[in-house]
């Protein structure tokens, strides 16, 4: 059901690959994790996406705007796998999100600092009300029952293509306003910068 597409011969350094991915997706990513691992990469080493699979992926069907993708990320290797970004043809912009409780006690979404860490031999759940892949600037309606192809990119640049069926779903109503999040970050979280070049410094 899920096809794994892994880059076997990489020509790009992890940081460059990550930056490129982020640029293609038209959104910001935290490149810190990729930079940390850059020096320890071995060419023969198994790519992270080889160890990654997604159990029960799905996407909330919507007519327009934005939506979310869910599922359980599974890592069957003995080292952590970090999903740092995602792409899909059906959305102009994709971000990895978490839901946090803000100072006023209300739940709010924000980009997940460092991406989704799938522990060695473990799982990381993406679910309504929790971590999820946010699909924005949808190119058209996502009808219930269609299959949406989503590519997860790991910190070493390897990729996993996931087929996520769309389902009608009343939950996952969290509204997301990237503008307001950036406003918050401007005065709260300098590490979570909008510019990967800055975050590396």
């Amino acid at each position: 059901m899920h096809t794994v597409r892994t880059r076997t011969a990489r020509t790009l350094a992890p940081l460059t690959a990550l930056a490129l991915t982020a640029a293609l997706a038209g959104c910001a990513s935290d490149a810190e994790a990729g930079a940390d691992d850059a020096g320890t990469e071995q060419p023969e080493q198994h790519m992270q996406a080889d160890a990654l699979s997604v159990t029960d992926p799905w996407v909330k069907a919507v007519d327009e705007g934005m939506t979310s993708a869910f599922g359980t990320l599974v890592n069957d290797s003995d080292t952590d796998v970090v999903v740092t970004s995602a792409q899909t043809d059906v959305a102009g912009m994709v971000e990895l999100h978490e839901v946090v409780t803000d100072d006023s006690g209300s739940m709010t979404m924000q980009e997940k600092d460092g991406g989704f860490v799938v522990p060695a031999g473990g799982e990381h759940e993406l679910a309504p009300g929790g971590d999820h892949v946010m699909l924005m600037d949808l190119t058209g309606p996502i009808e219930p029952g269609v299959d949406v192809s989503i590519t997860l990119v790991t910190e070493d640049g390897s990729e996993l293509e996931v087929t996520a069926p769309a389902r009608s779903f009343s939950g996952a109503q969290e509204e997301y306003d990237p503008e307001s999040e950036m406003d918050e970050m401007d005065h709260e979280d300098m590490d979570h910068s909008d510019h990967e070049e800055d975050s590396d410094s």
Partner: protein
Amino acid sequence: MSADDERDVRPATSSGSSRRSFLRGGAAALGGAALALGGRSAWDAAQATEAPAAPPADADGRATVPFRGPHQAGVDTPPQSFAAFVALDLADGVDRDALIRLMGIWTDDVDRLAAGKAGLTDTEPELAQVPARLTVTLGYGPAVFTAAGLEDRRPSWLRPLPAFDVDRLEDRWNDGDLILQVCADDEVTVSHAVRLLVKEARTFTTVRWVQRGFRRAPGTTKPGTTMRNLMGQVDGTRNVDTGVDPGLVWHTDAAGGWLAGGTSMVVRRIAMNLDTWDELDRAGREQAVGRRLADGSPLTGTAEHDEPDLEAKGPNGLDVINPIAHIRRARTENAAERFLRRAYNYDDAPGPGELSASGLVFVTFQADVDRQFVPVQRKLDEADLLNIWTTPIGSAVFAVPPGARDGEYLGQALLEA
């Protein structure tokens, strides 16, 4: 309680019990739930390592019916205790592509739920953990073939039944573009499955009607016991056995086309007037059907499955089995005019001034409605003592596609032209 206690609650099911595990079991029996077994029983259970495992206390809840196969489940599956029949209408604009998407969604849901697993988007996943022999049986009304642009594939019998004189049909129980028959030995399981299936179909369908029904609860009667309806009668003796007469229910590969492995489903809502039925003494009640109330035996026999002797005369020279007793009128010389009955009782809230609103969700499966069901119903329409107390108030006919084999979705043989 601790993990040890949990394990030792079912000592009889664990094999290779060493002295050490016995000691632990004994200890748990003193303080834990195994105490319910009684000291001596716990001892015996732990000693008898070769003894057959006792079924777990929640065996009824754990039981599953395979969903995948050449036929849909829920047709010749031994009837579960509870059922919901959900008729749906297609939303405007649903075409073949949309139907294929809907079938994919439902197939995935049923695949999971029948195995006791949560649906993909299940917001109440804990409710899915008790499969209780859950089956979901899908049927198509005529509109599916129109929406899919496949009118040429619509079986000739897929249309409303002809009007019968006894009918007092109410549109709120009639017809439907799709039906989901959801059955399980637990009502919570049925409710959860219906909710999930209906809400995931919300952009494709609207609910037209829902009929709920019940039989005896699991474990309350011996397996194979013929059900009783709310008039107190044994109801469903001499049912079709698909092991003996598969062709009465299933379309065969040779002649079936897309329907090979499929069948048809008739859902008739039969209201019972229990108030006037109450006016009848037991002898009168037995005359109406031709069977004894106590055990369902024909009035000419001694056991439920004895063949009725329709020629037998009483001392007064009259037929022992009344000329218009139900079993006489329902009988046919034509062995092909039989069908599988899978009825459920219903007992709704009564209307103003009424004591009850009870009856039968009379569900039948047959390869061909016109050849098997209609001739029998015509005879009963002409004359049947039971008609005095029973009134059909709803009627619907559906084509039941074959089962989904591994990798297939329900209805694939029809929709993949």
